């Protein structure tokens, strides 16, 4: 037998676990689309369908296209990538679907194939590689980025850039984003670097580990602080495992599942000893809960991922389930609540955060119509698809009631996007994470007590 013949008998390396025109391993899962009967109940739930009216930009349309590649009717190419990458991955369709089709999972799997078939080139590739592989998973570089931002804000450079209109060399949507950059403070991972455990105030009832997140800890370290405060206040010792890393959601959304797996493994190891992993960013929480999806072809890690995922809990649900202490001080304000997609649709958490807000004396909750409609943030979607994200934000802002002072939510991406909405549409609401409000109520209670004492 000649060499050539024997080569022919072997499967080419790239066809292992392939499916139709998906040539790489880890292709979209047939069982996920098997339940779709094309009924169309998902259509109205989909923000991109609402904007375009086009079915390739609807959940059932995307499922149909993803399936068609597996059936060999379509190739993995630019025209297929467009509808798949235009999806916000907001999961609203999963809520709407009568048959529980996991559209989000299919989208992510399809993106994995697309990125392997057609790696990003040009500046997009450079930027994506720089942030997704170079910055987010790297604590030191993240902190450096944070320090640079801090310098930018404090040194007066921000003012100069804005005043000299130097800022307009950026695309418009990035200018809008620059305008709402939160004030950068010290990351909690840096702050508690040498603390093995942050002790509960009073008697320790439980011990939890905290995922500090990558962006969260740089841009919103005050939310991490607030999270630690409310946890310790409620009898939790808090551990911050130092070798934890970025959750990988942005990588998986972008189709880089290999990097996603790498980060997942690091986190699974980092939180090995934890009994509970507390997350205050909906997008990260959802990703951590879906780690097993990344290891469909690796039984050993899949099992580890399953055990890990079972320990993950969103902060609002955890507080709610462990019967958090109801604050006694009054915060007199009118609040509306926005459901982060990855909290409401991704994790089914809707009432718990609202109950936390309701527990604060003086807080009046005003209903926001379509509260669980995506705001357009969707990870880095507002950077990659600014037009669509802008249109979605506009319709979101129309639903924000006029007479509220605060919009509360449980996800940093949404917070940035909604802050941009408030600025862009001349509104005046403050954007606040649910645990921050609870933390303020506790602090007010304490200062009142101290004042009296």
């Amino acid at each position, binding site marked *: 037998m000649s060499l050539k013949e024997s080569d022919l008998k072997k499967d080419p390396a790239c066809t292992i676990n392939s499916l139709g025109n998906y040539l790489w391993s880890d292709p979209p899962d047939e069982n996920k689309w098997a339940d779709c*009967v094309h*009924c169309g*109940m998902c259509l109205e739930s989909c923000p991109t369908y609402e904007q375009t009216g*086009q079915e*390739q930009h609807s959940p059932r349309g995307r499922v149909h296209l993803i399936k068609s590649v597996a059936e060999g009717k379509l190739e993995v190419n630019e*025209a297929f990538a*467009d509808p798949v990458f235009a999806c916000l991955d907001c999961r609203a369709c999963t809520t709407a679907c*009568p048959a529980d089709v996991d559209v989000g999972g299919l989208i992510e799997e399809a993106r994995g194939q697309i990125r392997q078939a057609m790696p990003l080139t040009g500046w997009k590739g450079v930027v994506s590689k720089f942030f997704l592989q170079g910055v987010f998973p790297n604590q030191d570089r993240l902190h450096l980025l944070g320090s640079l931002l801090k310098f930018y804000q404090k040194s007066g450079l921000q003012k100069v850039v804005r005043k000299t209109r130097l800022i307009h060399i950026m695309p418009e949507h990035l200018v809008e984003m620059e305008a709402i950059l939160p004030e950068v403070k010290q990351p909690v991972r840096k702050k508690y670097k040498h603390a093995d455990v942050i002790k509960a105030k009073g008697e320790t009832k439980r011990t939890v580990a905290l995922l500090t997140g990558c962006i969260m800890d740089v841009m919103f370290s005050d939310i991490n602080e607030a999270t630690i405060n409310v946890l310790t206040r409620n009898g939790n010792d808090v551990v911050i495992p130092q070798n934890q890393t970025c959750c990988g959601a942005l990588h998986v959304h972008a189709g880089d599942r290999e990097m996603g797996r790498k980060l997942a493994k690091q986190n699974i190891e980092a939180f090995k000893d934890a009994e509970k992993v507390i997350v205050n960013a909906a997008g990260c929480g959802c990703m951590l809960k879906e780690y097993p999806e990344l290891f469909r072809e690796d039984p050993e890690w899949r099992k580890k991922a399953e055990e890990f995922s079972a320990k993950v809990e969103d902060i609002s649900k955890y507080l709610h389930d462990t019967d958090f202490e109801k604050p006694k001080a009054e915060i007199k304000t009118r609040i509306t609540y926005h459901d982060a997609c990855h909290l409401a649709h991704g994790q089914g958490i809707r009432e718990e955060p609202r109950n936390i807000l309701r527990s604060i004396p003086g807080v009046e909750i005003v209903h926001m119509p379509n509260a669980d409609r995506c705001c357009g943030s969707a990870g880095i979607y507002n950077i990659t698809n600014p037009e669509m994200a802008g249109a979605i934000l506009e319709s979101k802002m129309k639903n924000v009631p006029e007479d509220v002072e605060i919009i509360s939510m449980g996800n940093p991406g949404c917070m940035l996007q909604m802050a941009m909405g408030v600025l862009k549409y001349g509104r005046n609401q403050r954007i606040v994470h649910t645990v921050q409000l609870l933390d303020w109520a506790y602090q007010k209670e304490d200062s009142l007590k101290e004042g009296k004492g």
Partner: protein
Amino acid sequence: MRGKEIQTKDKHIQNLAKIVGGVQSILYKKEDLLAYDCDGFTIHRHLPKAVVFPKNTQEVAEVVKYCNENNLPFLARGAGTGLSGGAIPLNGEVIISLVRMKRLLSVDLENRRAVVEPGFVNLKLTQSISDKGYYYAPDPSSQYCCTIGGNVAENAGGAHCLKYGVTTNHILGLEVVLPNGEIIEIGKNGIPDQPGYDLLGLLTGSEGTLGIVTKITVRILKNPEAKQTVLAYFDKVSDASQAVSDIISEGIVPAALEMMDKTAIEAVEAAAFPVGHPRDIEALLLIEVDGISAGIDEQIHQILRVCKNRNVREVKVAQDEKERERWWANRKTGFGAMGAISPDYLVQDGVIPRSKLPEVLERIKKISEKYGLRIANIFHAGDGNLHPLVLFDAKKPGETEKALAAGSECLKVCADVGGSITGEHGVGIEKREEMRFIFNDEEIMAQTNIRDVFNPKNLLNAGKLFPTPGRCVEVKKERKEVITS
């Protein structure tokens, strides 16, 4: 999104793009078109030539005119939730999608009517006027996403049509683009029951073969003062169906009277909106009465008594709006829920005299056994509109054909007992041949002659609604030659 220019040399695509305002309003690449190769009926799939998204009546008319002049087949599409294939481009049509024409144009509470564009979603009408105490009655299960334009084309029904009637009973006026591009208005000013032929009645339910509706005046109703909903579990189908007959003969006209059988219950309980129905019952009834508060309690008592007389295992009244909504969400997502227990399903839409229900269900069970395919039944029991859902797996060779044959036999049973082959889903592609169960060739010809008056070149949604009667084969063939030449 991608591409700012049309990237094809096809002059028809370029011309159509000009009419509808450019690249954002037309799809012509295979990857995009594939999302339009079927609607809620997935057995037949065909690629359209293009999909255009006009913004107003004028653009629709111009597209139609262009297609007519260039002998391009075309059809209209709404949300594509139809279950008989009415929006499938069998002949490689240019699809005119009306979903971007989705405005609520006016609400006239005093005269109880509203004007909508065809892409306006059914449920949104009720949502837009509910704070003023009004609603739009026809409520197909797909009302969360289906469009009123599509409802008109298919003369859609729904759970509450027992008391309030189907779409045609709620249409007061239409603006229509005829297949030659001419714009006409029928039922001017929304005045009901105009003299002359009932063209509104003819257009409504014509399955998109006579014209394209671009503006619709609908009747809106005042919310009923009170509403009560009952859920009843039965050990025997015969008891449940007897209870249905008893309720009607007591003189009660429920707003809705729904039945689900054991397999249907298994599906909805395995899917996204479970209620917690017992799995070992043979049938459940979901009964809703509405009207002025005074009589409601009395009616509920009568219904409870009837159910008890028919050996109901358990019967309960919804305690609040939340519970009622939960029961309805469970019922209304019933078709989609089949996905949870079967890879594919085919839904049939027969109508039978209520009294024949136990017999028909027994015969359907035999059909199920004969083909070795499970059949679930969801049933608008009050008006005898039966939905057998044939469960199958298209991946298994030959199973699709078996499912189609089983579905057809179910319809034959309906026709045999004096019923009909469709209650609300339309004939479309799916039941063309079954039309022969109730019409002979002459009767079918009489109807296609009417179509020819509106749609002489048969470019608009050809191949739907009617079988090709033997004797007109020659005529059709000639026409086809004209069209394709």
